[in-house]
């Protein structure tokens, strides 16, 4: 019957609207469901997983030694030309010439955090750091030299 259908339509519609309102009403009254993270305030407790890819860094030990041999495997692996390894030749005490890294230049502004350089590194000299707040006022600051000044290669890394 027309009138019955008409009224059924209306009651069905109102019922569906009320179920929706019950759902939002539930969240309105249950504040423990709130999931907002108050980001700059929770910096102390904010812990990113150790695999998070924030930027490429070079590990140095206490005596300012890194593990980079300057083999440029990372430079070749990088799809964007983010890494430039400038090499030099060290003279070892025995008088032999040895290739070593002079400047490990890393362009953060070009980096897509694809992790291919880390995979390519044969000596685990570079790794991904968990820092993610990279904004600076001058883009030149994003070009970084990863090996610390005065650092040299760790003993025994070939």
């Amino acid at each position: 019957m027309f009138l019955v259908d008409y009224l059924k339509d209306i009651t069905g519609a109102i019922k569906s609207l009320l179920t929706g309102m019950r759902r939002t009403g539930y969240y309105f009254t249950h504040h423990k469901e709130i999931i907002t993270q108050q980001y700059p305030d929770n910096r102390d407790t904010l812990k990113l997983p150790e695999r998070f890819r924030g930027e490429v860094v070079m590990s140095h030990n206490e005596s300012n030694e890194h593990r980079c041999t300057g083999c440029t495997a990372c430079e070749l692996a990088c799809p964007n030309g983010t890494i430039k390894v400038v090499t030099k030749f060290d003279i070892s005490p025995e008088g032999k010439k040895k290739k070593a890294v002079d400047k490990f230049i890393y362009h953060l502004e070009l980096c897509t955090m694809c992790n291919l350089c880390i995979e390519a590194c044969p000596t685990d000299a570079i790794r991904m750091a968990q820092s993610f707040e990279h904004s600076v006022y001058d883009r030149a600051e994003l070009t970084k030299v990863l090996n610390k000044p005065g650092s040299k290669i760790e003993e025994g890394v070939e």
Partner: protein
Amino acid sequence: MWSLSKISGLIDHWLNGKLGSGWASVAEMVIVGLCVIGLFAILGLVLVLMERKVSAWMQIRLGPNRVGPKGLLQSLADTLKLLVKEGLTPDGADKFLFNLAPFVAMIAAMLLMAPIAFAKDFQIWDVNIGVLYITAISSISVIGILMAGWSSNNKYSLLGAMRSGAQIVSYELSAGLSILSIVVLTGSLKVSDIIAAQQNGWWIFKGHVPALIAFVIFIIAATAETNRAPFDLAEAESELTAGFHTEYSGMKFALFFLAEYVNVFIVCAIGATLFLGGWMPFHIGSWEGFNHIMDYIPSSIWFFGKTFFLIFLIMWFRWTFPRLRIDQLLNLEWKYLLPIGMVNIILVTIVAIKGWHF
């Protein structure tokens, strides 16, 4: 006991003593005007904050909590931001109408303040055709929107304005019919009479089912008339970016924004007055003791409590429902609300004639 009517009476008395009756009424008009503007500003601030908090909690967010204690000053900061922003007028816009439109929208909202009783004996103008005045003036607000949409020289704005025109003209009917049902029950167009008639219980309870239906229709029509979701087709941001106020910026935009919220307040205040007894406390028939306890709560708190409850209801709608399409919106009005409203008013008339209401 302290009440708003006493304060207003004192001021009236003092002014009449100082200035004589002619100048006193001029001074009172100025004071009332300033009060309305002040109320506008406060309502805007409070309602924007309320909307943001309500939406945030429904959306499992915290909402504004940075500016001031618990974010209470957030809307003040927003207003400041809008004040110092540049108000752009687009090239090719009809400059006069473009700049006039927000003020028309504001003034229409402001005029509606007049017959609203904020507390016992606290009313700007208790005109004897109060309800008629409300229905008449509330249709003016569409002019501001149409003006804005037309003068912006923007196709989104025009579409939004046209939608708004169709929408408000249609929903006026249902809103009018549901208001009329209370007028039928009361037998008076005067706002104070309508409130007084609810001395022994609010109309929504006294008028049986017909009054309840009228209330539901009124709330739906009120949501539509104020262009709020799910009827926010005039500004439908996922379709028309911002509808009729796409081209507005700075303070002119803020005026539209304010007018929207004030309109929400006013329709809710009207709804509260007609169906929930306005400032009248919750009375049940002849339970003298109970009624007396209820009277201890000041009448202004009753009024604002009811109004904000309705505002919350409208916000609840907004943050739950999807938007209707323009043809469905008109379908809803002409195929559902209007026939139901018409049948309902017959029922109300029968109830009123037979005296079946309490």
